């Protein structure tokens, strides 16, 4: 029987700020990840509101200079992907994964701190592009050369170089984080915590870390080549001097498609923690779920060129087939989630509502993805607003709803206080209505021919109504954040005391105090299944029933 009693080394008194700046505690680092990512969520959202405001009506209203409009959507996407979703999920993992496997901390606490502190630095680098004479990067978050090369009408300013450096820095942070997660998960599990007793959240972080480790160096190579082209006279992507413009896209998407799974798998992990707890049943098909996760991770490396169907430079049947196939493990997961709720006893606290929001919205993001897997249909849809709709149903309807499910679920564990349920439900209703009002009409805009990344459109193109609806929806999403922020502000002071296990959870984080002590556990329960806390509460009898 493993009983860990660990006490922190006694240190001299330090001020609170100094403590946070120098901490190597995975919980504090995890919370800093979450707070930092949330700030960038607000920044990225502000850019999105600028874009939506411009598109509300035909004609140029907000941006007189279209270059600034291009900066806005480029920085919106870059911030949301690299500084919000990826680090937010990494931060939740940072907090939860060591506790869920019964470990006292991450394997390399100092590297953990290093990988966090690179992020605010990278964010400052990226945004400082707005202060440079040529403005911030404006070639889209994909930054395809030759547009992202130096040249008149291309990307002459240093904003693009800052973008490259920022992404390389974030990539380095991700790689360090991934190594840390892998070593932690493989080497620091508590006695009894075999691989097939690990919570699904841990499994998704494990697969995500493998993806990050294998893919991130590849995009770094693309960015380094682009940097050499721009600053040192290279011609990697210059087709008129022996380079190849499409080469960048292959290398870029070899990372950036797996990056979609980096952004979605941990959210799936969160949902797989929340649904069983609030259905009072185990996850349906635990092992099938793990195999599906690994399957998505493996197939995720063979579909990158479906972003490039219209380039005329990829082998279409192969990438079309693989893209269709990756729907299968995703479908298996969807059915497993549904059957976890089926015949359960469901209660609808805010984490559960957001998890159900994830299911219903991610389903749409999966279905509309099948259209793009079909190459002839993709010829019509590629680079239109349909793609914008699809990716937001996956990354917002999926990742962001999953992330909020996680924030509401673990807030009591992190702070010791409950969030207000009423405000949580107001947040959810505003967000899901605003989300659908914003992004569903984009299907119609795309299929009717509105390309992405345009600042203006003809008033007689038939796109006016849907664009206005999307803009209203965008501001509704923004308003939904206010009750959440108010909820956090109020609950931190006056929220109900959470206690160790407010939700009757299954996994080890609910077997320690809220917030957990330094090094997480005074004692660990026995681990005989993937639900050790459930076993301790109900005994083996209920488990076998």
């Amino acid at each position: 029987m493993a009983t860990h009693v660990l006490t922190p080394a006694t240190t001299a008194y330090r001020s609170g700020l100094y403590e946070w700046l120098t901490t190597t505690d995975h919980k504090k680092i995890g919370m800093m990840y979450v707070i930092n990512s949330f700030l960038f969520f607000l920044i990225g959202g502000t850019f999105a509101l600028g874009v939506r405001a411009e598109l509300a009506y035909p004609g140029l209203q907000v941006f007189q200079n279209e270059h600034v409009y291009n900066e806005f959507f480029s920085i919106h996407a870059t911030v949301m992907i690299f500084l919000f979703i990826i680090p937010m999920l990494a931060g939740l993992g940072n907090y939860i994964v060591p506790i869920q496997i019964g470990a006292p901390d991450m394997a390399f606490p100092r590297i953990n701190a290093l990988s966090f502190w690179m992020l605010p630095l990278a964010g400052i680098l990226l945004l400082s592009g707005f202060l440079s004479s040529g403005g911030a990067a404006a070639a889209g978050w994909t930054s395809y050369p030759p547009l992202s090369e130096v040249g008149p009408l291309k990307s002459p300013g240093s904003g693009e170089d800052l973008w490259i450096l920022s992404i390389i820095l974030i990539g380095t942070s991700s790689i360090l984080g991934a190594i840390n997660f892998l070593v932690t998960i493989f080497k620091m599990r508590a006695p009894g915590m075999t691989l097939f007793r690990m919570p699904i959240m841990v499994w998704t972080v494990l697969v995500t870390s493998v993806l990050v480790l294998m893919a991130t160096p590849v995009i770094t190579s693309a960015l380094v080549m682009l940097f050499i082209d721009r600053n040192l006279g290279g011609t990697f992507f210059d087709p008129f001097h022996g380079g190849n413009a499409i080469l960048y896209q292959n290398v870029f998407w070899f990372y950036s498609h797996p990056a979609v799974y980096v952004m979605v798998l941990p959210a799936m992990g969160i949902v797989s923690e929340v649904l069983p707890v609030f259905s009072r049943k185990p996850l349906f098909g635990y092992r099938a779920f793990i195999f599906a996760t690994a399957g998505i991770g493996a197939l995720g490396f063979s579909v990158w060129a479906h972003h490039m169907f219209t380039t005329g430079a990829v082998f279409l049947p192969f990438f079309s087939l693989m893209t269709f196939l990756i729907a299968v493990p995703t479908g298996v997961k969807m059915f497993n989630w549904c059957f976890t709720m089926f015949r359960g006893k469901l209660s609808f606290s805010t984490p559960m509502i957001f998890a159900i929001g994830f299911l219903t919205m991610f389903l749409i993001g999966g279905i509309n993805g099948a259209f793009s897997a079909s190459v002839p249909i993709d010829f019509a849809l590629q680079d239109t607003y349909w793609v914008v709709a699809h990716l937001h149903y996956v990354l917002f309807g999926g990742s962001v709803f999953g992330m909020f499910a996680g924030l509401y679920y673990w807030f009591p564990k992190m702070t010791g206080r409950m969030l207000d349920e009423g405000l949580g439900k107001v947040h959810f209703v505003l967000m899901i209505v605003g989300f659908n009002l914003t992004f569903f009409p984009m299907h119609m805009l795309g299929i009717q021919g509105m390309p992405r990344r345009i600042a203006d459109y003809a008033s007689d193109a038939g796109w006016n109504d849907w664009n206005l609806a999307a803009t209203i929806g965008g501001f509704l999403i923004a308003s939904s954040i206010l009750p959440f922020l108010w909820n956090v502000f109020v609950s931190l002071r006056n929220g109900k005391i959470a206690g160790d296990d407010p939700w009757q959870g299954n996994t080890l984080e609910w077997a320690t105090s809220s917030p957990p002590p330094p090094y997480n556990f005074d004692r660990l329960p026995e681990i005989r299944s993937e639900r050790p806390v459930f076993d301790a509460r109900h005994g083996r009898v209920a488990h076998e029933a």
Partner: protein
Amino acid sequence: MSRPPRRGLAPEALVAGGVVVLLVALVVAVFLSGAGRSLYPPDAATVQAQDTRGLYDIVFALAVAIFIAVEGLIVWSILRYRRKPGDDELPPQTHGNNLVEVIWTLIPTAIVLYLFAISYQTLNAVNAVSDTPDVRVHAVAGQFQWKFEYLDGAGNVLATQTVPYYATTSADCKAASLTNAACGGMAVPVGQKVQVTLDSPDVIHAWYVPRFLFKRDVVPGQTNKFEFTVDPTDAGQVFRGQCAELCGTGHRTMLFTVLGLSPADYQAWLASLVEIAQRTPPPAPSGATTLQLTAQNIQFDKTSLEVAAGQPFVIDFKNMDPAGVQHDVDIRQSDGTTVVVDLQTTDGGKESQYQYQALPAGTYTFICSVHPSIMHGTLTVH
């Protein structure tokens, strides 16, 4: 897997069933009423697009069926299996079922393999190019203008059309192109095979016409090729097109149209275009002031020009950029947008002698209509 004893229909089941039926009815009503029509592609205007449209209908039907089935299951579970207050009894702890897992792995696999197979078939039809098309067009997309070259069977250029730069939106171009085929840049005979080759002198663009349900990237250093046949009943129709790949600040202004003409009208249109192309320009009037202007690296070599009022003048214009990068020297009012003189563009590596009518005294802007944001200067007439 243990199952609970079968009971009578619970009231929750009735409510849940009712709500699910209601939601399905709502979805069906939306589509039948026509409001869901905006989720369908616009009317397909080419033979290839009709294939794609047929494929879309199949994928769409499957998508709606899967959507209703899964969302229905979720809504059903939410309504039917609510935990009652004070109910502390655990539901049956079902851990899974291998048979169901296999079933819901195999059925989706079969569905996606079917979708792949029919997509592949359609792809072969949509992507097919013939050795002997009826019309060959070489489209060059440069920042920020389309140029369409009409080729003969041997690949020689018969005539060239460029799309004028429009500072506002495609509305102008549409209004103009209904009466003037030249505005749109592309005219094609209906019912005949049109083969388009695509090249770019600068960055990546994309040739996109929504009603053709088709786009293809225009990649520098790589010549892409595709073919389409406009529906024979679409003579006289104008199809809007625009660049679909972000290409810089003027991205949204890279508009063009495709005008469908009957084969006879097309031949007449092409003949007039060829005649204009072969017409020798009249010599510059003797005594007119001649100015020199050069463009290189998408910059004019001068930022100000001066001419006398009330006299015609000539600009010897040299475009030293690579072939494919178009420039011209238009005259606008000092606001930079009101067009005074609009001239044809000059391709990279070529020279033109632009002739201008006499202008009243004042300050004007000379500007490249392809690159108005960075290529302009002041023309003083006194």
